[in-house]
């Protein structure tokens, strides 16, 4: 075999790292040094941290410290962190579903059915007080299932009011829904007619509007809480199997399963691509260069996904798949599960009955 012809530049030794005089110029602002050669780091307090006098290498160490040297993180770093966050979240969710707790110990099928039942109860409830009590009761369920309450409340009650609130916002004004005034906003002097709408003399927020909006937000909040609680306390693959029991077609479930299975692989691949690029990048790159890289990475990932899908299909065919997915489902509902079912029906009746009393 021929000897490799190694180019001469590949054999040249680099100067010692710290004495390298040919450091590439960074475009971003670097760490400032004042006359006393102390590190002025705008983002972090490095009091007491030793600083290399000559070159200003901060020994606080770690990535954060590097991030304060190049003080704005680029797109690539943010993407890598976002991907890591998704993975962490999934890991955390799986841990929650696996830990001992009230809802975790209930058979998944029973949980799916009772969740549907409770969502119907939320839909049938008319009164805000009943719905508030219902939501507090859901928080109790969360607590006894050892789901961190703070995280749960943040996940539901930061998002639901925002999105549902926007939808119901117009209905609280008497322009859309006439009613008893709660708060007068401004007085126009005359009422105007704009097509089907009438703008009254005094534009007000109405009692009926606010009550209606509140009920809707609380209903959506309760329904989303129940759905999130179900997913947080049930392992994903068990949940999918349970959905099969409530007449969700097997093909649909198989597609969901595979999506969930491979999304992490592709997240990992994307993360690897970004990290590999980061490790070969010195200084900062322009937005144009980053865009160029991202479009290239998307293409590469697409190709990878495509060739992989063929291989996965081959692997399935090899093990007997002939276009009709089958699943082995074995659930055993114990006495405890049936008791839970009974308890849920009882709770539903209590809430619906209580709601009727309020309406009267």
């Amino acid at each position, binding site marked *: *075999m021929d000897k490799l012809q190694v180019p001469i530049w590949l054999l040249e030794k680099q100067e010692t790292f710290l004495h390298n005089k040919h450091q590439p110029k960074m475009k971003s602002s670097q760490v400032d040094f004042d006359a006393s050669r102390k590190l002025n780091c705008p983002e972090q307090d490095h009091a007491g941290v030793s600083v290399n006098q000559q070159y200003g290498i901060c020994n606080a160490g770690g990535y954060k410290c590097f991030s304060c040297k190049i003080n704005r993180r680029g797109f690539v770093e943010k993407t890598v962190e976002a991907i890591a966050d998704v993975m962490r979240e999934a890991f955390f969710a799986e841990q929650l579903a696996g830990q001992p707790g009230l809802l975790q110990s209930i058979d998944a099928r029973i949980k799916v059915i009772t969740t549907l039942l409770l969502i119907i109860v939320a839909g049938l409830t008319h009164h805000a007080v009943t719905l508030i009590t219902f939501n507090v009761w859901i928080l109790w369920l969360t607590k006894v299932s050892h789901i961190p309450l703070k995280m749960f409340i943040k996940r539901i009650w930061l998002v639901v009011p925002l999105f549902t609130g926007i939808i119901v916002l117009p209905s609280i004004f008497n322009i859309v829904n006439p009613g008893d005034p709660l708060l007068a906003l401004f007085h126009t002097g005359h009422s105007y007619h704009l097509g089907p709408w009438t703008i009254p003399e005094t534009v007000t927020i109405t009692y009926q509007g606010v009550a209606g909006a509140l009920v809707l937000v609380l209903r959506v909040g309760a329904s989303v809480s129940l759905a999130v609680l179900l997913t947080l306390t049930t392992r994903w693959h068990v949940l999918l199997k349970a959905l099969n029991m409530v007449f969700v077609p097997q093909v649909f479930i198989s597609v969901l399963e595979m999506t969930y*299975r491979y999304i992490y692989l592709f997240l990992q691949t994307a993360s690897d691509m970004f990290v590999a690029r980061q490790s070969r990048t010195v200084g900062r790159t322009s937005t144009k260069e980053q865009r160029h890289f991202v479009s290239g990475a998307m293409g590469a990932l697409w190709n990878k996904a495509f060739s992989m899908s063929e291989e996965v299909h081959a692997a399935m065919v*090899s*093990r007997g*798949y002939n276009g009709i997915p089958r699943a082995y489902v074995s659930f055993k509902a114990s006495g405890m599960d049936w008791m839970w079912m009974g308890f849920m029906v009882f709770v539903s009746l209590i809430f619906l009955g209580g709601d009727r009393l309020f309406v009267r």
Partner: protein
Amino acid sequence: MSGEILFELKNVSFHYPSGEEALLDIDLNIYQGEKVVLLGANGCGKSTLLKILDGLLFSQEGVIRAFGELLNEKNLNKDELNYGFRQRVGFIFQNSEVQLFNSSVWEEIAFGPVQMALDTTEVKQRIDDIIALLGLEHLKDRPPFKLSGGEKKKVALASVLSINPEVILLDEPTNGLDPRTQRWLINLIKQLSRAGKTLVTATHNLDIVEEIADRVVVFSENHRLAAVGKPAEILSNRELLLGVNLVDEHFHRHAHDGNHRHYHAHE
């Protein structure tokens, strides 16, 4: 060679839709109960041949018979033949990632038997047995994407063994495994062979060839069969290995006390 012929390949050629040649004029028989190693440099067509043997790719030229039946697309589309063939042949892919497409290890092992519509009590029994055999008890509820490379390979093996195939095709099984897991795998292959399974392994890891082969089939870089013979004959034929670009001129082997030999290259 004694034993019934399980696979019979006559003048088999395969090229990809792009026109790229993968196999040319292959004549080969695989006999029941033997251990065959397909040896060759990267890109010589070993993996393609395994996929053809598993009825995942179909050659454009030549004839392949498996268990006495013609192995072609038309025949494999027949439910009965497909069922019988899939039950008899298992394939361990080089990339375990593509083979582990279920959401938990337990379901992964169950997939084959369930697709083959086995009785649920038998499915459960098989899974429990395989989990005990390969020591996967602690992994059974885990999603496959969170496993290490060695664990993935074990689960991939379990998922194929649960079908109880007569023939097991292994594509580069030791790639990316640590020495301990490699040793475990080789021992398992030997055990399976003793249990009467037919094993066809594609590899370029010369160190393991003697242990996992009764017969070695060497491929040349021009996608043809270069030689077929006993492992000792093939591995001592330095000219042959050089010719198919599997080793360089520094390749030699060391014999240690007992029967152990190993192959390597250094200047």
